[in-house]
């Protein structure tokens, strides 16, 4: 990476982080809402552990994977609405009049998602462990879990950037939120994939990438070190990020029609 590109990424990352930290309204719901759902699910569905083949005695440990995905969904909204606001206010035009490169803009904007993802992951894990969840992979597993969570957050964030650049409105980006929640609900969110006995639901959950992201996180919490599931989780997150980034770069070219 050239020094000018590094400088541009650094400057925009700084702005993105400052913006995130100065908007408690972005941080608080992204932390509180998944924790609230964690409490409801852990309390209401704990008898699921009695099902034959359920991988753990602690439903809290099982369901703790979900907040990490829910938190990543908030990053779609945050990164997307921030960029959409830049488009709506003309700030993107201001940036376009500088020698800014598109790659720097997108990477810099994702820096806020990295910070939010990091804060979220640490809080979710800490709250989960304090409430009695297990972490089979130990301290090293905690670091990998946080890394995976941040990777997922950034990957989902690229979709927010794409939506913002494609549609240019914060409302359009926020409209994605329910769509992503459908993806979450149609995954192995509340039960392991093997125990989803309804055919259509099992079929959808089997091809839903969110299922494998959840399983990668769960492998660290429940099993310890399952390299295959971890690699699959990281690969899926990387693929989502790559697709999102490619789509966002293409949308940026159309949005920034500077000559």
């Amino acid at each position: 990476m050239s020094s000018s590109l590094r400088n541009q990424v650094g400057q925009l990352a700084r702005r993105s982080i400052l913006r995130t930290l100065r908007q408690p309204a972005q941080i608080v719901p992204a932390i509180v809402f998944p924790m609230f759902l964690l409490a409801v699910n852990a309390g209401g569905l704990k008898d699921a552990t009695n099902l034959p083949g359920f991988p753990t005695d602690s439903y809290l440990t099982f369901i703790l994977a979900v907040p990490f995905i829910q938190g990543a969904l908030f990053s779609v909204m945050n990164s997307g609405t921030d960029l959409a606001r830049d488009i709506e206010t003309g700030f993107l035009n201001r940036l376009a009049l500088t020698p800014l490169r598109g790659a720097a803009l997108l990477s810099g904007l994702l820096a806020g998602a990295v910070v939010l993802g990091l804060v979220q992951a640490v809080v979710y894990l800490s709250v989960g462990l304090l409430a009695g969840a297990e972490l089979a992979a130990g301290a090293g597993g905690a670091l990998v879990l946080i890394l995976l969570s941040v990777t997922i957050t950034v990957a989902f964030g690229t979709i927010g950037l794409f939506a913002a650049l494609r549609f240019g409105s914060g409302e359009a980006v926020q409209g994605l939120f329910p769509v992503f929640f459908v993806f979450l609900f149609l995954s192995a969110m509340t039960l392991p994939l093997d125990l989803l006995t309804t055919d259509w639901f099992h079929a959808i959950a089997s091809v839903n990438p969110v299922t494998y992201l959840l399983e990668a996180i769960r492998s660290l919490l429940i099993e310890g070190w399952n390299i295959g599931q971890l690699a699959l989780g990281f690969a899926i997150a990387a693929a989502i990020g790559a697709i999102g980034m490619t789509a966002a770069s293409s949308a940026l070219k159309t949005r920034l029609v500077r000559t």
Partner: protein
Amino acid sequence: MADSARGGIEVEGLVREFKNGPRAVDGIDLEVAQGEIYGFLGPNGAGKSTTVLMLTTLLPPTAGTARVGGYDVVTEGPQVRATIGAALQEAALDPLLTGREHMRLQTALHGLDKGERETRSRELLERVGLAYAADRKVGGYSGGMKRRLDLALALAHRPRILFLDEPTTGLDIQSRTALWEEVARLAAEDGVTVFLTTQYLEEADALAARVGIIDHGHLVAEGTPAELKAEIGRPTVEAVPLAEGDRERMTAVLGRFGEQAGSSPRGVAVRLEGGESQLAEVVRALDAEQIAIEHLQLHAPSLDDVFLAKTGRSLEGAGEEAEPETGETETVAAA
């Protein structure tokens, strides 16, 4: 290329057509010399902002050519952007960042080295009178403060050419005057070429060495404010009768001296065919008809008169159609 055009602007047959819309800019030719303040005057929707977007490389022209600072806006976009500074129609600022953080970001993105960034930021914030508020979030700035910061940001990399798109719209008189002074100083002392769009006649009159009047995408007049007014030549006399009932008779009397012009609701105004010397005759004629006058005023020709003469409409309130959204442009791939 003329020497002056190296620091100036040359436009020939510039056109911008929007999908399913009118030609927002329809074949404009103009030339702005280095160090000149050029006022681009017109109502909302006339094509001012579209022209600025094309000249600042943010919108590709449909046809025609434009060179800014000696560089072609279509084929030499990066060079044009390095040469220009722009404060576009809305002061596009981040409400969550402070003034100083804006300056830091702008100077860094323009490639100033670390030491120079701080110096330049401080210097510009002081110059626009915002040093005292530099560490406050922009969300708490007034409209005037935002406009001044916008100007400082446009000047971050010492541009030779400055585009100001309606820089004083919505500002109070004090803020407007302060901005005018700074723009005039930039042109006079630093030799910066200024392309200024405005809907305010007095702004163009006070600042611009030359004025171009645009209406429905066409440049309908161009020259110094004095030349344009001289072209119209005729002053306007406006009288208000003491008795409301005399208004019709007053209209008939004044009608003998020239064509009717825009007036206050209670008054009658005509453009004097014979110039200022007819004023005494007007007074005598009204006296002869025994029409008591509450108020009588002679107006020298204004740029609004020029606009009226060239377009058949008054500039005030002429802009009924909004300029097309640039988002509706034909998609053109970025270079």
